[in-house]
């Protein structure tokens, strides 16, 4: 899933200051799971902005809220159609994709990002998410015991650890595990250390042209298009 953190209230306050009628739009998928922009966070933010406005005595914003099932899907974004005309700005609590998807559909309305989209990751424990995938476009997890060196090594290097690892941790952050120590131990356990002894050539950055598009094989086979 995509993991994000809500922006500080002051920053959101600064962004919305030129606008009067603000529609706060949440997202029912990743942003709900990571507590950054689901129904609950939309309601909290709505109240917090109202309270801040009352306390400061500045601004004459009016707020409304809506939560889409997914902000990255045109089918759901369509549901904002009747609301957009009644507001001056949309404050999206979707990830960066959601913000852009809404902006593409409603070109006459400014769309503001209410969260900082951080990474693709997994829930480690209650309320803790860890980054696991960098979307490099050439998955090599088969070679590395299911542990991604591109995501989990701060340098993203491919041929083993640097000399900065200490106590199994990374030189960049003493709390962070050294990916290559994890990879070594996992491959040893799987009796696949020969995979670590292989030479891996430099990455192919052509595998991640930006921006990238994937067309579903099922869709292209039936000749349908998202044109």
């Amino acid at each position, binding site marked *: 899933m995509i993991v994000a953190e809500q922006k500080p209230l002051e920053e959101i306050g600064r962004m919305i200051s030129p606008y009067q009628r603000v529609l706060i739009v949440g997202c029912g998928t990743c942003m709900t799971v990571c507590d950054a922009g689901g129904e609950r966070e939309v309601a909290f933010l709505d109240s917090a902005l109202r309270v801040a406005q009352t306390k400061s005595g500045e601004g004459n914003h009016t707020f409304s809220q809506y939560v889409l099932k997914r902000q990255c899907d045109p089918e759901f974004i369509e549901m904002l159609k009747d609301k957009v005309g009644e507001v001056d700005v949309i404050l999206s609590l979707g990830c960066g994709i959601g913000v852009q998807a809404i902006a593409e559909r409603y070109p006459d309305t400014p769309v503001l990002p209410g969260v900082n989209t951080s990474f693709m990751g997994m829930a480690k424990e209650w309320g803790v998410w860890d980054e696991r995938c960098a979307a490099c476009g050439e998955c090599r997890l088969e070679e590395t015991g299911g542990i991604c060196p591109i995501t989990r090594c701060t*340098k993203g290097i491919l041929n*083993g*650890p640097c000399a900065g*690892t200490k106590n199994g941790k990374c030189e960049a952050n003493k709390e962070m595990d050294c990916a290559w120590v994890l990879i070594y131990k996992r491959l040893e356990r799987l009796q696949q250390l020969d995979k670590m002894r292989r030479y891996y050539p430099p990455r192919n950055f052509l595998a991640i042209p930006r921006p990238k598009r994937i067309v579903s094989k099922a869709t292209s086979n039936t000749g349908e298009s998202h044109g």
Partner: protein
Amino acid sequence: MANSKFEEKLNSGEFIVTSEIGPPKGTDTSELVHHIDLLKEKVDAINVTDHQSSVMRFPSLGGCLLIKERGGEPILQMTCRDRNRLALEADLLFAYSRGITNVLCLTGDSVDVGDHKVAKPVFDLDSVQLIRMIRTMESGKDMAGNDMKGAPKFCIGASVHPEADFIEPQLIKFDKKVAAGAQFFQTQGIFDLGSLQRFMQYASQFNVKILAGIIVLASAGMAKYMTNNVPGIIVPKAMIDELATAEKGKGLQKGIQIAVRFIKTIKDEKLCHGVHIMAVGNEGVVPEILEAAELAGAPR
């Protein structure tokens, strides 16, 4: 034929001594030049660090040019932290064109430990890939497979960490560097000769020269600081305790004594092929260390 004076020395079987200089932060190169002149005839080659610990400084290439101009033998330190493959290739072409033909290939410290923490880390290549890239360039092709007009030739070194607290993955990396074409290794700081001996039992199967890294510690405080803050370095408690026995203000003298003791033992007991002395900011004491270690003899 050797690609450099230093390569000739590596192949001579003699005990090898290299040292390194950290370039200035700024354009004032007077101290750098002073240290070059102090060392150029006393060691076999001088490394110039490449933004060591990710702290922005005058470039290694610039320091190596100064060494060359003043008649010394430079080792270009080249990390993968700040340049992608195009920039690395271009710098190597330039270095070769100016007679800088020794290169030490390093991954580079993390940007997070330095003074430009918000900079974009590059790491397009790692140290093993960098060595391979240079060997490819020597064949007359660039990394994309295009023909080049004029090919460089280098004497290639790399780094290894015999005192890593988890040595097995480091040895795998070492093997890969050897297979890629590294000819010599300057080790990370050695603070325990036992670990050097254990490493050499492993490394002696390969036809590469190992120079033991000797860090000149200036105080117990510096040793503790390095253990806590410098990537990979763990100064053992026994050595910190020994440094702590120094009278106030005499820490560096104690550090020099320890360095001399290590260098003499390494040389007399032939533990490895040479030493690489890192005085970290106290480059001026290196001649004194060489004198005391009885390595200041014949001009180099």
